[in-house]
């Protein structure tokens, strides 16, 4: 059983009179523990695909099975519960809550899930230690460097031990060295069994993934698993 199975997914946006097929009859299966890079130019549909995978958006047609369960037909609250427990997000612009400390930001998903404060404190302390942030626990995001912010964001994304980690241009706002650190961190998590899906238009980062999905005009043009390795660009 695949972790993720998309069949015949379509997503159509209406912009005035014209309709844009952001995703057009997409069929993809991703196994548990995979490391996938979704690549393609702007407007190719890679972000729309990530939003669909993260249950932030609904397809207009097709089915999405997550861990064997059809999640497209769930109610918004049920989808929120799936997002809470099974999906972790890492964003290009970190999306830390500015008024909360690093520890509070990491604790946010657990707070939303209703986990008691005592357990939260303990798990946050462990996570901050694992990510080398234990001395930054009481710092607010504006007191942290870009790399530290993204590490806080990754700690937050993984604190609920999700089945899949979705990263949208995780190095887009970072310099090369810090970006490499962040990618190394994500890959380390993947090596410990977490499914990692990275959206990027950076060839160098994309080529590090074991599997590349090339998107173009809402269609999957190239799947390295299906079509063999991508020719060097």
């Amino acid at each position: 059983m695949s972790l993720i199975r998309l069949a015949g997914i379509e997503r159509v946006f209406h912009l005035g009179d014209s309709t844009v097929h952001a995703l057009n009859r997409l069929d993809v299966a991703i196994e548990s523990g995979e490391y996938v890079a979704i690549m393609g130019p702007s407007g190719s549909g890679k972000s729309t695909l990530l939003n669909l995978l993260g249950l932030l958006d609904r397809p207009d047609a097709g089915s999405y099975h997550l861990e064997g369960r059809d999640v497209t037909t769930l109610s918004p609250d049920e989808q929120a519960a799936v997002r809470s427990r099974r999906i972790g997000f890492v964003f290009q612009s970190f999306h830390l809550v500015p008024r909360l400390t690093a520890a509070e930001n990491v604790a946010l998903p657990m707070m939303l899930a209703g986990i008691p404060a005592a357990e939260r404190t303990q798990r946050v302390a462990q996570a901050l230690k694992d990510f080398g942030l234990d001395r930054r626990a009481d710092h607010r995001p504006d007191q942290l460097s870009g790399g530290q912010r993204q590490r806080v964001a990754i700690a937050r994304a993984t604190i609920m031990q999700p089945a899949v980690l979705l990263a949208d241009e995780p190095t887009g706002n970072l310099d090369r060295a810090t970006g490499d650190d962040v990618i190394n961190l994500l890959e380390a998590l993947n090596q410990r069994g977490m499914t990692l899906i990275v959206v990027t238009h950076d060839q160098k980062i994309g080529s590090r993934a074991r599997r590349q999905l090339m998107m173009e005009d809402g269609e999957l043009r190239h799947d390295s698993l299906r079509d063999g390795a991508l020719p060097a660009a």
Partner: protein
Amino acid sequence: MRSADILRFARDAATGYPLRTSLSVLAMAIGVAAVVVLTALGDGARRYVVEQFSALGSNLVIVLPGRSATGGFSPANAVTTTPRDLTVDDAFALTRQPSVRRVAPLAVGNSEINANGRLREVVVAGTTSTYLDIRSFNMAQGAFLPEADWNRGAPVAVIGSKIKQEIFGAAPAVGELVRLGDRRLRIVGVLKSVGQGLGMNTDEVVFVPVSVAQNMFNSNTLFRVLIEARSRGEIEAVKQEAAAVLKARHGGEEDITVITQDAVLATFDKLLRALTAAVAGIAAISLAVAGILVMNVMLVAVTQRTGEIGLLKALGARGATIRNAFMAEAAMLSLVGAFTGYGLGLLGAFVLRRMYPVFPAYPPDWAVIAALGTALGTGLLFGIMPARRAARLDPVQALMKH
């Protein structure tokens, strides 16, 4: 999400934007403070009037000449239309009634007092020795009018404290001769200052025997007859006895009006309560305005924190959780504002009482409860719309705004 966490989250969100938060708290506080201070003023006026009436003396029944209520048509009404005078003899007849403790007739007119080389316009009140006890007045110097035949008063006068001050200053007044209109009277006493009562300032009144006053004004009728009942329970009996006696003396015609202090008091009480409620209503408009401001502030907060809302949704927050968090924030703004306003209002009322010690400016309980309730209610009501808007945000769109 646990309730305690929602509250903490909302608190942190509110304190995270101090200017925005303090402005909306201030608006709510001003609204509540306005209600508290204005109702304190209104209710203070009511208490002031009630106290004034109580100062008139207890168990008081007042007889007025003329009938105020329109009776049914009767042959007597058709024959005689002018009411008879309410005379001193009428008043004296009332003293023999069983439920009556004291009676004091009152004839009132204007005149000039001339003494010590000074001239002053005064109110002259003609009455008897009983008046002092009925009104519970006290003497500053000398004695009140002497007990005497009501129809043959001595040429004496008792003056109010203000008149004494203006005409004699610090010099003794008792024993001095004064000219009042065309009479020469000897001052036998000076009243202690009491202030307003029965529509005249007693400090500016010259009291003379009722017969002297009636001669002076060339009139037989009395302005009022004040009757003191033996007890509070006998007020109604006095009322009926007075009406019956005077009806008999006036040839079977009910041409007088008997009112009790209670009735007058109840009317004023009702009137001033209505006034206070009206003032509270006007002040409540500022609460509604404050509520709209809270809504505005919350709408701004939703726009400002769109990215954060998108994030919360991505992290698994349900719509209801986000709605509750924003509602809690609106409620906190209103609550803090309401209690700040309550404190400010109490302070304002305290300052009022300090400035005007005779004026008991305490906010009534109902106004305080209503103000706090309305503040919280409007805050929540006007918080619903922004909170729902936040809960309904599309997470994809919201996440793009950062």
